[in-house]
């Protein structure tokens, strides 16, 4: 091929632009004569006149790369002694000779692209199936919600009626009671002095009650203390294992421990409790109490923000609870066990609301009539599992079961009967009828609250953005895991993300939103880092045949990133784009073959 110096580095399609005798700078800033095209002097600040040299700082150089894909590079790369274009065209006047590697590179790139296209193809099929199913399931959820709302309305009506009935009964009962009381009063009037003495006795008994309550509280506190001692021992031994072994001694209490000991749970409390400790530290008296080694660790921890007994900065991801303690020392640690244990409070703050819902359902006495529909669906997803709160899907199944109409009818019928049967004007109140009303009221309002809670669960779920085609619908009930070193990372889309080490869990964030047109899942406002931001996680999604989480990293302190492969990202348009690119590369290749 003949090298046309004047047209060097310009895109083939642009050649026409440079045909005239006087050429305009593309940004309109001026014009130049054709002899100044590629004359190695910048006349247009935007680089129009120097497509083939490094003269303009804003210029771009086009390399054809026959056999591979053409690319455009910054003009600063032209003749800089580094081969950037695989055809070597960017180094036409420098002290290096670039081999044309487009053939091999192109071949490799095409192979890679072919594989990618294949993945996209299969992925797109899976995706389409999922989307279809998701749409059905979503519609079903919506239908259920509509239905539940209808039922709620009816049931609310019944409950209101029963409540009114109950109120009337109670009113009647109250009137009766007052009447009786007044009678008794009159009878007792004679013995009034005696009554005063009785009052004294009752005071004494109240005192006994309050003492009992106090004892209970103390017992709770000592439990907490015991746990803390175990924790401190772990630190003294300086091995995380010893800490977990302490916990394992008492498997029955594991749940209790893991929630209480979880650094995520404790961190807010530590921060508040550690603040005054920090003050103390700066006083000479405090530092003087330290051994020389402790002092060294303490001072080092200022720079590292780490727990004193882990002064070395090796551990990039050490136990997070240690980050959360500003400049702690063994002493401050001891102090903390005196601080009222706030774990219970933070517990509710930490766990998602979904889990709280679960507890409500756990108390239910529903008969488990049917249907494991959701569970069946979930089994299809590879590398993931149902999120914790799935169990409740079973619990509320009776609400969505096919037989549901009958229970509503039944309840309506029963209430009707009760209401009709009851006679307000009969005095005294018929006790058995009153208790039936009460029972029916309790039953109905319990059903109502179940329905309401199911409605709220469904509403919570459906308010989420599941993607343009609901392709992320099934993410709602799934979590994805990845093990990196000693940590297990858990990502539950639309809910939360966490880092688990043994029994301690650190929140990396609560669900925030999709970003970059559904290519990134953002989790924000995780547990706070000492001297750093609240933890957060960005999960980058890419096309893959199954849902797989990997590559969790922490490029910036407490700002995590991860990659999730999923068929949901294998979109048709992208597939077409890749196919076109592959085709283009193949054409380019054939062009090369012809040469």
């Amino acid at each position: 091929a003949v090298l046309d110096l004047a047209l060097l580095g310009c895109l083939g399609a642009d050649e026409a632009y440079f045909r005239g005798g006087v050429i305009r700078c593309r940004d309109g800033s001026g014009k130049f004569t054709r002899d100044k095209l590629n004359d190695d002097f910048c006349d247009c600040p935007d680089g129009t006149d120097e497509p083939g040299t490094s003269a303009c700082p804003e210029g771009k150089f086009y390399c054809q790369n026959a056999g591979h894909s053409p690319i455009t590079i910054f003009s600063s790369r032209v003749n800089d002694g580094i081969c950037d274009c695989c055809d070597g065209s960017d180094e036409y006047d420098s002290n290096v000779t670039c081999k044309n590697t487009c053939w091999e590179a192109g071949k490799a790139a095409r192979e890679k692209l072919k594989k990618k296209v294949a993945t996209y193809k299969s992925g797109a099929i899976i995706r389409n199936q999922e989307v279809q199913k998701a749409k059905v399931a979503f519609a079903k959820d919506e239908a259920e919600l509509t239905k539940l709302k209808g039922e709620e309305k009816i049931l609310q009506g019944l409950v209101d009626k029963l409540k009114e009935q109950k109120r009337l009964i109670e009113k009647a009962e109250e009137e009766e009671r007052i009447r009786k009381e007044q009678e008794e009063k009159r009878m007792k009037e004679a013995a009034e002095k005696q009554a005063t003495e009785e009052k004294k006795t009752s005071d004494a008994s109240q005192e006994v009650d309050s003492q009992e309550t106090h004892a209970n509280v103390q017992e709770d506190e000592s439990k907490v203390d015991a746990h803390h001692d175990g924790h401190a021992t772990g630190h003294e031994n300086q091995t995380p294992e010893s800490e977990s072994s302490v916990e394992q001694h008492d498997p029955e209490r594991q749940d209790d421990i893991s929630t209480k000991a979880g650094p995520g749970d404790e961190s807010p409390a530590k921060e508040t409790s550690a603040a005054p400790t920090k003050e103390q530290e700066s006083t000479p008296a405090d530092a003087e109490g330290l051994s020389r080694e402790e002092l060294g660790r303490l001072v080092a921890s200022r720079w590292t923000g780490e727990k004193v007994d882990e002064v070395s900065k090796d551990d990039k991801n050490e136990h997070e609870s240690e980050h959360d303690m500003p400049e702690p020392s063994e002493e401050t640690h001891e102090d903390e066990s005196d601080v009222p244990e706030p774990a219970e409070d933070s517990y509710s703050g930490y766990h998602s609301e979904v889990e709280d819902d679960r507890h409500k359902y756990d108390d239910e006495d529903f008969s488990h009539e049917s249907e494991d529909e959701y569970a069946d669906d979930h089994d299809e997803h590879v590398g993931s599992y149902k999120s914790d709160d799935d169990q409740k899907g079973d619990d509320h199944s009776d609400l969505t079961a096919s037989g549901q109409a009958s229970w509503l009818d039944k309840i309506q019928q029963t209430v009707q009967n009760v209401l009709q049967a009851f006679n307000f004007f009969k005095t005294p109140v018929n006790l058995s009828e009153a208790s039936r009303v009460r029972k029916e009221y309790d039953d109905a309002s319990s059903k109502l609250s179940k329905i309401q809670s199911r409605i709220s669960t469904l509403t919570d779920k459906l308010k989420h953005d599941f993607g343009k085609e609901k392709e992320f619908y099934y993410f709602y009930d799934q979590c994805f895991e990845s093990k990196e070193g000693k940590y297990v990372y858990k990502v539950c889309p639309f809910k939360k993300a966490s880092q688990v080490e043994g029994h301690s869990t650190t929140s990396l964030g609560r669900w925030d939103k999709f970003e970059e047109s559904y290519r990134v899942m953002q989790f924000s406002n995780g547990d706070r880092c000492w001297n750093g931001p609240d933890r957060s996680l960005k999960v980058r999604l890419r096309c893959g045949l199954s849902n797989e989480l990997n590559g969790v990293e922490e490029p910036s302190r407490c700002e995590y990133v991860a990659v999730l492969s999923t068929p949901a990202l294998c979109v048709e348009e992208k597939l077409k784009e890749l196919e076109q690119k592959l085709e283009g590369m193949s054409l380019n290749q054939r062009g090369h073959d012809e040469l």
Partner: protein
Amino acid sequence: WKKDEFRNCNQTPFCKRARTRAPHSLDAPLSLDAASLAVSPDGSLTAALSHPSRPRPLLLRLSALPPHALRLQIDEDYSSNTPPHRRFHVPDVLLPDVEARTLHLSEPKTAGGVSTFALSSDVDVVVKHDPFELTVRRAGSGDPVLSFNSHGLFDFEPLQESKPEGETWEEHFRSHTDTRPRGPQSITFDVSFYGADFVYGLPEHGSTSLALRPSRGPGVEESEPYRLFNLDVFEYLHESPFGLYGSIPFMIAHGDGASSGFFWLNAAEMQIDVLAPGWDGSTSTENGQIDTLWMAEAGVVDAFFFVGSEPKDVIKQYISVTGTPSMPQQFAVAYHQCRWNYRDEEDVAGVDSGFDEHDIPYDVLWLDIEHTDGKRYFTWDRSAFPNPEEMQRKIADKGRKMVTIVDPHIKRDSSFHLHEEATAKGYYVKDATGKDFDGWCWPGASSYPDMLNPEIREWWADKFSYENYKGSTPTLYIWNDMNEPSVFNGPEVTMPRDAIHYGDVEHRELHNAYGYYFHMATADGLLKRGEGKDRPFVLSRAFFAGSQRYGAVWTGDNSADWDHLKSSIPMVLTLGLTGMTFSGADIGGFFGNPEPDLLVRWYQVGAFYPFFRGHAHHDTRRREPWLFGERRTALMREAIHMRYSLLPYYYTLFREASVTGVPVLRPLWLEFPDDKETYNNGEAFMVGPGLLAQGIYEDGQKSVSVYLPGKELWYNLRNGSPYKGSVLHKLEVSEDSIPSFQRAGTIVPRKDRFRRSSTQMLNDPYTLVIALNSSSAAEGELYVDDGKSYDYQQGAFIHRRFVFADNKLTSMNIAPKNLGNKKFSTECVIERIIILGLSSGSKTAIVEPGNQEVEIELGPISLRSGLSSVAPTVRKPNVRVVDDWTIRIA
């Protein structure tokens, strides 16, 4: 900042004692024994200083160093009545030929208890005998320049044989005990500067003021002297007289028409008061006299009086005894990217390609302590860096370098060969009981090689060979941190003063120089590694007088706030005045997350620092320049590009510094010594003689007042607009750049093609920017060499002076002949000459030789798009920079 952890003057007995003493109130003032005064065979003047109540006389020595420096030495007399110990003389700081350069003094004239002798033809020295007092004065007028002990505060605590009954020499601070087995030995004296409006120098302190504010006397509220004691201060204050990482006991005084300097070579803790007028109760407000009080815990008097009289002369005089700054490699003058920490090889590759993707040049990628295997320096964490050579090679393929950190604390780990070797050889500093000192630093229990010992420095230097430092390659350079030394569990986070060094020297005596010796040993190591052909690059945090010979320093762990940005300029300027021109502050601030606007401003200011590096603490968010949106990326790219385009100018200035010591970044008064308006301007600065920049130090600042000194015009660097000199201009602040100007009468060489790194700019053509003065003249220089070797010492460089006069630009060779037989050549040409202030409507220029006609057209002052064409530009003269030529404007 933990104030309580550091001693103030009142908690420091020698300081408290000296500082509370009234002038002329000493119990045993020293007097000169006139009979002993004599010119010794080496040409110096010697005499005995004594007082009847003292156990022994002291020995005084006065010597003269050309040009215009007087050296005063006072020590115990070891020849008779031998004192129990030898006081410490700081070795290897003064240039080895200082003694040889000493002049032969003439016999002093003595009359009426006063002896006088000539220092030079126009300066003489007056010595008053009782009490001893010394004045350096101008011979003709008799005007004093500097004086010693004119307030009678000179005290020299003699070494004592044994502890007096009932006295304790121990000192306590917090939980630490200093055994002080040798007792009190401090030295105090007053020095006065005459004809001075301000004093400067004494790094390192956080300050937004360029001049040293008075530390004591009327009107001074917080009374604490300037402390020189190398310390690792966590979250240091941007405004405080307390000591930081380095110490240079050198002060410059400047006033209308006179400059002078004083340097005390002493590595012990020093405290210096700058006394406000009236501090001694005197009511006479003698104009232009500044009194100072100097206190040191130990050592001897080895002091230099520099007479000036121009401020640059004072710097040159100081440099003539402590040495010129080393000439850096070209890459080291470019942009450095650092973070604690780039985690692994993938991270390194990602950051490297991030710069390429955003077309932002950088030259050096840095690895902090996490790259090592458990903070064992010279090792790699092989899980994160399995192939360090391969990693460095990939970076080097783009012409870039890497830097790893090597600190002085060595992990006490029996499986660590370095520790085993140092232990076996007895190379560690010893504690007061004679055992290897065991302190706490990053690796945990650590010991510190005794860098005072030349043999140990030699041993340390060998550790940098490719053989010893596995995984190192020729493009790997070194960073010395924590070399104050930082000892986490030591008193004031450093080594106990009673630790023992080579030659039975106590740590208190050499503390401020420990980091200096460590820096020296490391730089020597790189020099050895490169067989003397590769200029070392070693960045150090601690420093002392003379550190300029070994590499660069930075201002340590600053914070991401506007005040720290503001204090960085006075701090860097002060370092430059005291020899350490190759310095800078961490861009963005080490601690904390800078607001994006602060980060952008910091890049715009930092792009002018001689040492230009972005760095961040590991708890901070990532802040590579492309992470804050397109607009801010463009602004930071522009700031970095500006620096790269000025690299030829900077390199030429580094050459000047390496010859004369005159710093790259200069206070305005160094260039305009007569302009009083400039004397305490710490917000603006000069880059060489030609450029002036004013930092923006406030968030959202809308306008800024910029004082442009001198009588000539100044041209805005971005758009070429002219501004009058000697005027305080109120300017609108733009987000594009900080206000920066070229001084009329100067020529600045640039390279306007932006490459990945400075390495690829080697063959790129030059742009000359000529700013004509009121006589339509200008001049400037260009220095070029191979950018890495020492061949320039044998003449392998190009040094041109460009002179524009009578409508003609001439390039002439100013390289001295006969330096050696090595040559440097380049095919580089000048592609563009921008002439600011050219009035004629000339269309052509004639290049000689060749009588070739080239076009002149209106062109932009900068090639960035969107800027209008404003200045006559000679298009493609394409003359080679190596040649003599003239270009005549037709």
